[in-house]
Structure formats: structure tokens, C-alpha cells
């Protein structure tokens, strides 16, 4: 075989080998199909007015913070309202602007934008205690019945992810944000993984990042593609502010396999409806689209998905099927 023939054969083999992975990937792209399993709240009933936070316990009970009802509500797995607590105010068990909710073991953790700290309830909705937290909380995950991780917002300096015990004592602090990134650019949501690491999805940046508890960044991924988040300038008593105007990611949750479900924002093709599924190494596994816009995304122990619909009047539960 002469050199020319070798060259042609080698080129042919190279083309076949180079094309093969793409062919496999194209043929085996996984697909997630969602099927509605439950719907709570309609425009005609008074079950929900504006759901903000959602949590699910190990027995399948669903807890919802209602922003316009200043309350914490408990539903059974079939969607029946079985408990309600709270009223407008600043005292124990009261709310002015309820926001975030999470559950671990026998405890529920709730935040309020206008009341500092984290309120702790038992699963019967009895107020138990308040965890002091001086900084504003923009995201929260319960790590255990007496331990919580919060992503704080600070007037000066960058946000950080703090782990607090039931007394509000700082157990550890993860400084993930770039202080030079700009105003609000460190706004984010996060989820905690069983190995103690955290995955952070930025509200105004096309970045999803995994960090160890010790503060080492394991990976950082752009998911939405080469789009720049638009900004606007606004005068303020502190001078001119440059503000991002479009959101990248609204929420993040992990399923039992360690896959990460990231809810896209206004920068996604289908605003606040596209869900990007990443594997534990941050590679894009698949995507799917919710029927309605949502600000939150919760996955329970059975890998069922909970999102909002009808602008917060309805909570939807979906079964996820892999095809």
C-alpha cells in the first residue's frame, strides 16, 4: 500500500471516528417527560394566593409559604389542606413577607424578607424557635434539624454562604462571590449535596458552580450560551447604580441520583420555564420545559417535581419519566 492510499484510508478512519461520538450522542440524547400528579389551588378557591416557598417532608406532606396570606400551610400528599398557621406581623410565627422554606427531619425553616432571622416550626406547624441571622437571606437550605445554610446579601462586600446552627452561631462560611462582579451579580440560589458540597446557580449570571464545603470551586459552567445579561442605569441616593435587568437562573434542586435541575430565567429560550438538567460534573444531561412559568423548583425524596403555576395561585406536582 503506497503513501497516498495510506493517507486516504487514515483520513477516512479519522472522519468515521470523529463522527462516531456525535452520532451516538445524537441518537441517545436522554429525554425527561413530566406528567402532572397533583395540582393544588385554583383561581376559584382560596387555597393559595401567592406561593413563595415550598418544601416536602419525608412522608410526602407539602408545606407552602403564602406571601399574600402571611401564612404557612400544610397539605397532605393528595393536596388536602390539613393545617395552617401565621398572620401578618413581626412576632413569633408571624410573617410580613414570607419567602423561603425548607424541611429537614422534624423541622421546617422559613424566612421573611421584612423580618430578620429564620423561623423554625415543627411539622405540626407549631413555632419552635427563631435562628438569629443579621444579614438578609436570599437563599436557604436546611442541612439537618439543627443546622441551616444561608446565602446572605450584604450592603458592603460580596455575599457568602454561611452554615449556622440552631442558635445562629456561624459554623462555616464559603466566600464564593467575586466582589468586583458588580451590583447584585452575586445573587443566587443553591442546593446542598449529600457529600457536603454546594451547587450555586446565579440569578444574573450564566454560571452554575459546584463548591466544596472547604471553599474550593470544583467546576463552573455556562449553560445558556453566549448571551450577555442586559443592564440599566438608575440614579439612587448613593449615586448611579448599574442594575442587571434579565435573570439567568431562578432556582436549583438535586434529585436522588445527584442530577442537578436548574430553572432558567428570562434569558432562557422559554422564560422561567426551561429546566436544564446537569450531571454531578456539571455536564448538560438534558433539558425540558415546564407548562407554566415558575420562580421555584423543588424535588422530593421520590424525585417528584414541585413548581408554581398560575402566577403563584397553583402548586403543581409532576412525576418525571426518563425516556
Amino acid at each position: 500500500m503506497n503513501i497516498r492510499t495510506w493517507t486516504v484510508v487514515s483520513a477516512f478512519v479519522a472522519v468515521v471516528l470523529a463522527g462516531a461520538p456525535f452520532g451516538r450522542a445524537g441518537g441517545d440524547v436522554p429525554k425527561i417527560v413530566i406528567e402532572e400528579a397533583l395540582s393544588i389551588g385554583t383561581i376559584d378557591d382560596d387555597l393559595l394566593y401567592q406561593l413563595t416557598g415550598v418544601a416536602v417532608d419525608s412522608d410526602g406532606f407539602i408545606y407552602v409559604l403564602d406571601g399574600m396570606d402571611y401564612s404557612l400551610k400544610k397539605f397532605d400528599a393528595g393536596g388536602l389542606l390539613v393545617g395552617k398557621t401565621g398572620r401578618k406581623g413581626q412576632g413569633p410565627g408571624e410573617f410580613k413577607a414570607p419567602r423561603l422554606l425548607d424541611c429537614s427531619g422534624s423541622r421546617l425553616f422559613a424566612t421573611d424578607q421584612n423580618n430578620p432571622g429564620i423561623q423554625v416550626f415543627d411539622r405540626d406547624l407549631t413555632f419552635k424557635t427563631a435562628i438569629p441571622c443579621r444579614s438578609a437571606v436570599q437563599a436557604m437550605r436546611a442541612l439537618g434539624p439543627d443546622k441551616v445554610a444561608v446565602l446572605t446579601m450584604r450592603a458592603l462586600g460580596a455575599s457568602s454562604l454561611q452554615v449556622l446552627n440552631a442558635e445562629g452561631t456561624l459554623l462555616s462560611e464559603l466566600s464564593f462571590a467575586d466582589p468586583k462582579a458588580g451590583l447584585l451579580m452575586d445573587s443566587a440560589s443553591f442546593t446542598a449535596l449529600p457529600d457536603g458540597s454546594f451547587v450555586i446557580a446565579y440569578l444574573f449570571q450564566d454560571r452554575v458552580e459546584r463548591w466544596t464545603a472547604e471553599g474550593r470551586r470544583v467546576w463552573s459552567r455556562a449553560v445558556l450560551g453566549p448571551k450577555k445579561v442586559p443592564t440599566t442605569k438608575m440614579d439612587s441616593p448613593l449615586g448611579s447604580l448599574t442594575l442587571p435587568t434579565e435573570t439567568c437562573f431562578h432556582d436549583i434542586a438535586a434529585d436522588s441520583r445527584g442530577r442537578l435541575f436548574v430553572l432558567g430565567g428570562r434569558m432562557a429560550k422559554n422564560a422561567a420555564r426551561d429546566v436544564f438538567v446537569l450531571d454531578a460534573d456539571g455536564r448538560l444531561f438534558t433539558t425540558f420545559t415546564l407548562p407554566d412559568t415558575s420562580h421555584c423548583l423543588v424535588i422530593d425524596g421520590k424525585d417528584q417535581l414541585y413548581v408554581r403555576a398560575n402566577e403563584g395561585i397553583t402548586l403543581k406536582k409532576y412525576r418525571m419519566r426518563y425516556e
Partner: protein
Amino acid sequence: MTRFNTKLLRGLTAVLVFYGAVLGICALSLDAGICERALRMCLFEDQEIRMEMPGFYVLFCLEGYAFCKRYIDPSEG
């Protein structure tokens, strides 16, 4: 160029300038979304917030803006 052509050119220019102005106003209105308007009100008009948290109300307003962008604005989109 004939007088007719000159008039036509001026007319077209006037129409284009007007159209451009309208587009500019529309763009400005779209830019000032519900969250931007709420932030402006929070920063400049809400005296109660300034009384309640002097020194911190700008942070409070910005937190509200981020909340609005995440929770409320998707519905406006």
C-alpha cells in the same frame, strides 16, 4: 432634483424621524419594567422604609428588586 422629489424626500425624512422617536419612547417604556419602577419608588418615594431602616433601605430596596426579578417578572414576560 425636481421640486416634487425634494418634497417627497422631506416627507419621508419627517416620517422616519417621527417613527424613530416613537420607537425610542417605546424602547424606554419597555426598559422601565415593573421591577425597575418599584425600585425607583422604594429608593425615592417610600418614606416609611427610610424611617424604619435608615442606612439599610438601599440594600432592602435592592433585595426587593432581585426578589421581583425572580418571583414576579417572569409573569410579565
